[in-house]
């Protein structure tokens, strides 16, 4: 069974500093996708970044980057130059890539990030 674990229920970072959120997952599959979603107080679910497991290069999106360690089944999110608007709940998510039809996401329990001015 696929499980996603986020071991940090809460994290805080000073504005303009860098923070890393951890995520590990368990799967027997070799081909899959990993995602980080952000959920601000408004409760929307906003995609931050995604990573295909077959790609060795870590994904980056502006101030957001990941450290994908496939062998260790680790997928951490680094936020550089943190801004007040980054304050949110961050969810790590996994899905299989090869199945036909719709493929659901498995979510971790989330990390609440506070940005200190």
């Amino acid at each position, binding site marked *: 069974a696929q499980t996603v674990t986020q071991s940090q229920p809460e994290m805080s970072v000073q504005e303009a500093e860098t923070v890393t959120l951890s995520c590990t997952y368990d799967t027997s599959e070799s081909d899959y*996708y990993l*995602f980080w*979603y952000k959920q601000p107080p*408004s*409760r*929307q*679910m*906003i*995609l931050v970044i*995604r990573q295909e497991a077959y790609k060795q290069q870590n994904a980056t999106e502006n101030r957001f980057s990941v450290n994908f360690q496939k062998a260790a089944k680790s997928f951490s999110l680094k936020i550089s130059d943190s801004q007040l608007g980054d304050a949110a709940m961050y*969810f790590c*998510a996994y899905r299989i890539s090869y199945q036909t*039809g*719709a*493929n*659901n*996401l*498995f*979510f*971790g*329990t*989330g990390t609440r990030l506070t940005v200190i001015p």
Partner: protein
Amino acid sequence: EPEVTQTPSHQVTQMGQEVILRCVPISNHLYFYWYRQILGQKVEFLVSFYNNEISEKSEIFDDQFSVERPDGSNFTLKIRSTKLEDSAMYFCASGDQPQHFGDGTRLSIL
């Protein structure tokens, strides 16, 4: 940018009543999903829908739940006889790579 829209944003219903949550997925998407998030907990998969039928469902999605795409535009989730434990945020999503989420419907069962 196209987005997934959900209505209503907040629904309050008496226990035992039927409720229908509505979603308009992004127009060219083929895959549709419902997820649930009980307050303070993680997001959980309920059901996926493709080619006008359910492609997968979780153990949460029991006989009280049903989904429909009645007119090729809306994608609905119906709960036939609501229970207190159905109180949650319900998210609709569409797409494949990646999935795009709506803003959610907060369902409160009294």
